């Protein structure tokens, strides 16, 4: 599974993207974040406040409950500020 990070989420994790294999039983976005936070300080900082984290699963807007089974790409970012 490919993970992508944008804006300050990218700055805090220290990378724009990475390939990961989450442990069995990682069923939704919330569980994926919980696992990521065990992987180091950068992730802990990035995901400290889930109220300001937005996500997309296979390039569609999702939320903490969105299933990730079979997903090939999950992205994390702050609320969008384009336009």
């Amino acid at each position, binding site marked *: 599974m490919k993970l992508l990070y944008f*804006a*300050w989420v990218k700055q805090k994790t220290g990378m724009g993207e990475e390939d990961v294999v989450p442990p069995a039983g990682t069923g939704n976005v919330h569980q994926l974040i919980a696992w990521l936070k065990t992987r180091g300080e950068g992730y802990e900082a990035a995901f400290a406040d889930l109220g300001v984290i937005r996500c997309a699963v296979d390039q569609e807007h999702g939320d903490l409950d969105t299933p990730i089974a079979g997903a090939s790409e999950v*992205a994390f970012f*702050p609320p*969008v500020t*384009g*336009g």
Partner: protein
Amino acid sequence: MIRVQTDDFDIGAEVAALTGGRTDIGAVVTFSGLVRDASGSAPVTSMELEHYPGMTEKELARIEAEAHERWPLQATLIVHRVGRLAPGDNIVLVIAASAHREAAFEAASFLMDYLKTRAPFWKREEGAGKAHWVDARESDDKAATRWKR
């Protein structure tokens, strides 16, 4: 039509491209967004626009398709720039063309409200030696809820 690009755009040329040779368009509304030299009280000397390639295009196409479902539109265009921009530079262009002005105004406003809250772009402002990611505005979320149905 949608485009994500680093280059600037020419509003007049884009309108001409949409309306040229057609005689069924009665109203064209354009919105262009520009980089301002201040954000609140903080000076802005440059801006960096990041986006999510792939998802951006899908999301803009979805927003545009939804506008065509809601209003009788002859043509629409969304152009969004990415990369480094300076105060006074164009950021975004939205055009809605219809037979009548109500649809053109409403669709252009809708496209901007949805783009502001759904399209994966992020602005980073630089000024006075500091840089910060722009916070999302509550007023943008509120504006987008106008169109909920």
